[in-house]
């Protein structure tokens, strides 16, 4: 029996809301596997999501789950985590949810380094609303609101969140399911703000607009068009040279894994300091 079966909610009827072949289930499964491998009690795990295809994921699994408003998952998660730092808080979000309407919360949570693991289901498109371009739609690609090709520049979510101060930042794809699971696990182990940017296939809308083929072809495309950051550095010496030589390819791997003071721990220290002062 797959690990995820242990965690499926009894009240929910299947099939789920996702289109057949959607990569989101692979990310949810990797998330649950990572939680399970860490031996966390399901009572102490809180999944918080925003709005969009990605954000429907928490409903299906038996944790404390909070499906919030568009873009705001990280803000709600910040309240949950600060109010009860013992909880393991995971944000499930998408490229539109996290980087457009929720972009401000994303960068500030990075800056604060609050212990939340954010998993971005990045499918380059607003799927649920019918295929409008998102802040990660590649330049030139088509979408329902970019019918002649994208004239807008996309975010590199890893560079953005590294710049903003996240302490664990990695990228993977739904092809690399086991590696993805290990990144989520590392993200959960990091005592700070972790970002895992996961490329996933929306073959039904993004794929159709951009002639990317079937789900299997898109997943295979992730395999063929990604290069691990360690391999790239080994081959080209450093990241800058590697990026110049990697035209069209996407870098995956762990980009940052660094220990820094965590927000809720610092706040608890403040409370302790004030208590000691009061005793004196």
């Amino acid at each position: 029996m797959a690990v995820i079966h242990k965690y499926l909610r009894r009240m929910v009827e299947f099939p789920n809301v996702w289109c057949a072949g959607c990569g989101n289930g692979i990310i949810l499964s990797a998330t649950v596997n990572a939680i399970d491998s860490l031996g966390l009690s399901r009572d102490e795990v809180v999944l918080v999501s925003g709005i969009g295809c990605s954000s429907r994921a928490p409903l299906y699994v038996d944790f404390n789950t909070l499906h919030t408003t568009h873009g705001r998952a990280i803000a709600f998660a910040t309240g949950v985590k600060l109010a009860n730092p013992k909880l393991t808080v995971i944000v499930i979000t998408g490229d539109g949810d996290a980087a457009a309407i929720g972009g401000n919360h994303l960068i500030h949570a990075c800056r604060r380094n609050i212990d939340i693991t954010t998993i971005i289901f990045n499918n380059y498109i607003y799927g649920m609303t019918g295929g409008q371009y998102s802040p990660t739609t590649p330049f030139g690609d088509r979408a329902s609101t970019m019918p002649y090709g994208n004239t807008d520049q996309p975010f590199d979510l890893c560079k953005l969140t590294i710049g903003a101060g996240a302490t664990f930042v990695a990228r993977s794809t739904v092809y690399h399911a086991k590696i993805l699971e290990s990144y989520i696990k590392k993200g959960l182990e990091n005592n700070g703000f972790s970002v895992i940017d996961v490329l996933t296939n929306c073959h039904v809308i993004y794929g159709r607009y951009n002639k990317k083929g079937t789900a299997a072809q898109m997943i295979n495309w992730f395999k063929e068009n990604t290069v691990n950051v360690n391999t790239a550095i080994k081959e080209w010496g450093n990241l800058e040279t590697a990026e110049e030589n990697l035209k069209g390819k996407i870098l995956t791997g762990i980009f940052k894994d660094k220990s820094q003071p965590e927000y809720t721990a610092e706040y608890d220290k403040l409370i302790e300091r004030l208590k000691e002062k009061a005793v004196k």
Partner: protein
Amino acid sequence: MTKRAIRLLQGNEAFCEGAILAGIRFFAGYPITPSSEIAEEMSRRLPLISGKFIQMEDEIASMGAIIGASLTGLKSMTATSGPGFSLKQENIGYASFIEVPCIIINIQRGGPSTGLPTYVSQADMMQAKWGSHGDYPIIAVCPASVQECITVTILAVNLSEKYRVPVIILSDEVMGHMREKVEIPLPEEIELIERKRPTCPPEEYKPFDDVPDYIPPLANFGEGYRFHVTGLTHNEWGKPAMDPVSTHKLLTRLKNKIDRNIENICKYETLYCDDAEKIIVAYGISYRVAKTAVLKARENGIKVGLFKLITIWPFPSIQFKKICSKAKHFIVPELNQGQIIGEVMKYAPKDAEIVGVNKYDGTILEPDEIYKAIV
């Protein structure tokens, strides 16, 4: 018995006194005039009592954070003013729909838009009721003295916990910045209401159950009752359910939760209403001015009464109709172009004459402006 401390406090400081006495232990906010003193005071006070304060990146985030914190069981609050109150509306509707207790203080300033950041107004009265989309339950209360900034905040927290509903404290710039002598209630004098918790086994727990009193128990995240919370229309388990039957059932329960409890929820005060031919309906800072006008009118033998609204939403329609059934004239002084006057029109006797005394220039009413409307 220990004596109550007597202090000279600003309204915004008094809100914090009330909040802490009522058990608020989480505050998230964003700086905005004229409410910022509340955030400042909470940032100083909360860590001293193991509570949590956070200044979020924007108004929307601070509303989100208090909802998240409340779901872990901490009584939570935010404070803002006009533009921030507008920004919070989507998440206020969300909190109402998922039935999470939380407190939003709105220190009203002149609008619309950036308007008059440092001057008074009472122009968000209707926004407090209708500001978020859809039909949703909400409670709003309004203090009329610095002492009431304490007592009304305690009332607000209790109502929020009891009814699983966000409660908005509608104050204003003058009340927030005015200093008055207050007596700090002793903790043993305060009755605190805590949200109903589930007692059933976790597998039977329905966080949105259609219970006879309309208020299902709320479990804390992290304590064994794992449940799903969504802003989608949902069934009693919290599962999205968007069919007509489930939708109608949920929205009706949420409406009944407030509408069937108007007499339990609503607080008001009356002065000389028994024999009054004319009744002034007032709230907040305008109530204080109206009181001076009423006392002067009574000295001059005019039969005028005063109906003071403490609860604004739901409007105390049942009590108002009983008390004001004989009056023929109503005067509604407000620092806006006429908002609560609409409620008075709804519930006053059919043939009554109803006039507003409206000021919307960033200053408060003078007693004579109301007195002139009486005579």
